[in-house]
């Protein structure tokens, strides 16, 4: 099972929409897919119309008292299941730290939980909360690929560099870090300039660009992945390009 994390330390940059739409496209192409909504705000869970509730909460899940499978929910889409968010995930850092005291490595605990799902799925997408925390460290260690949405600004490019440097300090397996442009507006000169130059200057940044379009924002109104209700529009095509990047990087 390959693990793909949608991660950025900043919020509101398109992590959840990327994770939801890519998970949908993966399943539609025949990959058995699970999406884990690790963000206690539960936006991905909301988009799939699932109640943000995990019996026993973060403590039992991370502590191993309840199996991960028991928390899974089938979505309305063939081949795509969801591990929903729960408000107790806000304390997941503490639960992960506790798992360290019980003999597990705190930074690797999520990997262990994902291993439980490895036989049932080909791909796991992780939608992460916007933070630098033990949860995000776990996510970066568990992932084979980290997708980083970049709003084309100078500061956002710096954040990408910091993340790439941090991953570079990992011993052993390191995930591929792949930046893509998010919420882009072609009318803005800076956006156009960064999209044209950054991929050539930074290793791991592609020119794939998800435009800032109202049809993407409608996901929250329709409560469905974008390709499910707008299968042929430019926004869906942009996510399909991003999916092609993922396929190539993971050799799917």
């Amino acid at each position: 099972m390959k693990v793909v994390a949608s991660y950025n330390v900043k919020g509101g940059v398109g992590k959840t929409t990327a994770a939801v739409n890519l998970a949908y496209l993966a399943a539609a192409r025949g990959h058995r897919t699970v999406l884990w909504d690790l963000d206690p705000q539960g936006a991905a869970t909301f988009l799939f119309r699932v109640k943000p509730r995990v019996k026993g909460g973060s403590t039992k899940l991370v502590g191993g008292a309840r199996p991960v499978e028991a928390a899974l929910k089938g979505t309305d889409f063939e081949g795509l299941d969801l591990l929903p968010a729960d408000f107790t995930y806000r304390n997941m850092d503490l639960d992960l730290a506790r798992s360290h005291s019980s003999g597990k490595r705190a930074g690797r605990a999520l990997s262990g939980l994902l291993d439980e799902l490895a036989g049932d799925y080909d791909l796991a997408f992780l939608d992460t909360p916007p933070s630098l925390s033990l949860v995000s460290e776990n996510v970066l260690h568990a992932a084979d690929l980290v997708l980083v949405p970049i709003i084309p600004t100078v500061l956002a490019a710096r954040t990408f560099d910091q993340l790439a440097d941090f991953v570079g300090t990992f011993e052993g397996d390191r995930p591929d870090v792949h930046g893509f442009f998010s919420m882009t507006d072609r009318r803005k000169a800076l956006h156009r300039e960064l999209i044209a130059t950054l991929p050539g200057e930074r290793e791991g940044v592609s020119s794939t660009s998800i435009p800032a379009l109202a049809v993407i924002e409608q996901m929250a109104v329709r409560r469905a992945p974008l390709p499910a209700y707008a299968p042929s529009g430019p926004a869906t095509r942009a996510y399909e390009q991003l999916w092609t990047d993922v396929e190539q990087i993971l050799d799917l």
Partner: protein
Amino acid sequence: MLAALAPAKADRYELAVGPRRTRTVTYLDTVDWRLHAKGIVLSHERASGPGTLTVDGRGEENSTRLTESPQWPARVEQLPEGEVRDGVAAAMWVRAVAPVVRARVVSREVAVLDDERKTVVRLDWVELTGTEPSATRPLVRVTLRPVLGYGGAAKRVRKALEACGDFAEIEDGGAYATLLEAEGIAPEESAPPAISADMPADVAVATALHGFAGVIAVNVDGVLDDIDTEFLHDLRVAVRRTRSLLKLAGDVLPPELVRRYGSGFKWLGDATTPTRDLDVYLLEFDTLAAGLVAGEPGDLAPFGELLASEREKARRALARTLRSQRFTRLIEGWQAGLADVLERDWSEQDGRLTAEALAAERVRGMVAKVIKRAKAITPDSPAEDVHRLRKRCKELRYLLEVVKPVCDATAHRAVIKDLKKVQDVLGAFQDGEVQSHSLRDYAERLQSSGRPPAATLLAMGELSASFVTMQRQARHDLTGALRKFLGPATHERIEDLLP
């Protein structure tokens, strides 16, 4: 439909009905229900285009999209290569599959939604209407598909649907079984009527013969249409059984009936021999070719072509026989004559020989003949003597099969098992003998029809040698098998068997 499914709302859900899909589905099997016997369901489904062929073998399902419309009946080599064909090949054996039932299927998926309008249960509404062999009323089935993590909702909806009582079966189940039942088709071979111990002997013999005549008649169309080789085989076995029973117990029937029709079955049997011999050759051809040591399998190709063209000629001649007035008169007259015997009042037969007594008398007589011939066989006996013994063994076997209902079941099984072992060895001897002779004949015909490649003749020579080896091995095994068969155990078993 929504009204019918309304109970599924269980007072808390909403229903969302998906689009209507219409397709036709054809379920296929061999005439002797080989797929059904192995728990395999083969179906052809089409909405538009050539459609999809699906095999479901005890839960494991494989499908293949067809590139051209299939023709039925079809033998295994006529099905598209792939997992579907692999899934039915062993069960089909050499038999062809043909449509059993055909139906129009209208289906809709219904989503049961919770208060977030999330699908928590799926219901598959399927309306099946049999169209062939006859039109049935629409049969509605609802299958409940739980969604992962919503087990509670599935339980609630199932309970609500069961409580309303409108759906007798909402569990997973075979649409095929439902259709068969609606069409009144029992998926099993129809057994001929059996004789009983107290039946008058002539009624018992006529009953068995009437059954064989039915088998002959029912296989004629399959032979004429050349659906598969087993139609001819079954027809031929029924002819042989008829001839054996006439020979061994025909004297209890009205002499005029036997005199008038008896010889017709020899004529019919002889007419089937050339095609069947060539069928056997062709069925074994690939195995024979693969067994070549010095030659290559491809070396035999011209020989294979000769066999195929000879077989086609033989089949055309057989078809003429089966379409002839002589054949029609033989079967119809014979069946009518036997029906007269069967319709006679049993009370008229009071004091006459019963089936039980006839069985005991004729089996003992036949066993004595077989034993006498078997005792005379030595390792040096001429092939004709072995051949005659084989024929007598076959006759005994057919007789035992007819009288089975009046015999002790355990002893009958044991005797048939002993006899089968002897017959296998005799069969191997006979095949080696016949095939090595016929190969010589075919080689000469190939030679006279043109200039066959030297490799072909060499490969045929190698085959001939292997047949001779087979015959020698069978001759070696024969005396041992016969000695065992002639021992006291068999005699004891035959006495146990008889009333």
